[in-house]
């Protein structure tokens, strides 16, 4: 049985792992380490949380996901005036 990859190597591969771009042999090594390493399990979980929380912060929570503020009237007028001049 080969040695486990290091925590630092696992962290390097996280983005490719969660996007499904990690080749199968590397994926096997990644998951073998993950199975026995609680700190890396926590790192992966909080890395995923970071992506989810940034989306929620920028796009709004479930209660506002479909709502977008209408464009302000003065900006509509400015755009139409600029078009008339262009």
């Amino acid at each position, binding site marked *: 049985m080969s040695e486990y990859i*290091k925590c630092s190597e696992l962290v390097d591969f996280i983005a490719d792992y969660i996007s499904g771009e990690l080749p199968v042999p590397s994926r096997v090594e990644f998951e073998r380490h993950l199975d026995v390493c609680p700190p890396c399990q926590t*790192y992966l979980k909080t890395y995923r*949380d*970071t992506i989810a929380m940034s989306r929620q912060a920028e796009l709004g*929570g479930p209660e506002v996901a479909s709502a977008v*503020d209408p*464009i302000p009237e003065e900006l509509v007028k*400015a*755009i139409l005036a600029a078009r008339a001049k*262009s």
Partner: protein
Amino acid sequence: MAKPITGKGSAEGVSAAGTLIDRLRAGDERAFETLVREEGGRMLAVARRLVRSEDEAADAVQEAFISAFKSIDRYTGDAKLSTWLHRIVVNASLMRLRAGKRRPERSIEDMLPAFQKDGHHVDPPAPWQASAESGLMEKERRDIVRARIDQLPEAYRTVLILRDIEELDTDETARLLSVSNNAVKTRLHRARQALRTLLAADFAGNTP
């Protein structure tokens, strides 16, 4: 004579969009106004996420619409009209960012995880508190996360917004930023790691 466009989402419907585009190409003033009212809100939200200033975001949206009106003949219909406009306002926002003043930035290196010589974490990561346990309202949590995103160096914040929020793919992000695909991938991973470090200071707790 073209039928008037009415109702929500008429810029998206296949036949209605076709009619709207015909009218835009013919220079119909009311068609331009319809497009601005239907798509302007979403475009302004995109610009706000990228430029972070209300005035700059409004200017980016105005520039995007003027650019779209001028190049409507080049719209091929391969992508949805809203997708085409999304690309244009992203581009206009990035141009504003490039022209803007640089703010002082922390080095990304300071925000990346540290490892011992044997590859173990220097500070083993602690689990984060669930939102119900943190005592923070959802809006407060979102405000904190947005403030942390704003602390990322600009080159990293931009890639995080384009890839994780606006959901552009690596190829398109690389093209818009004039960098390689590998640079986009590296910056995205580093941006997420740095943001994770910043958020850990706010949300890491002792709960299992």
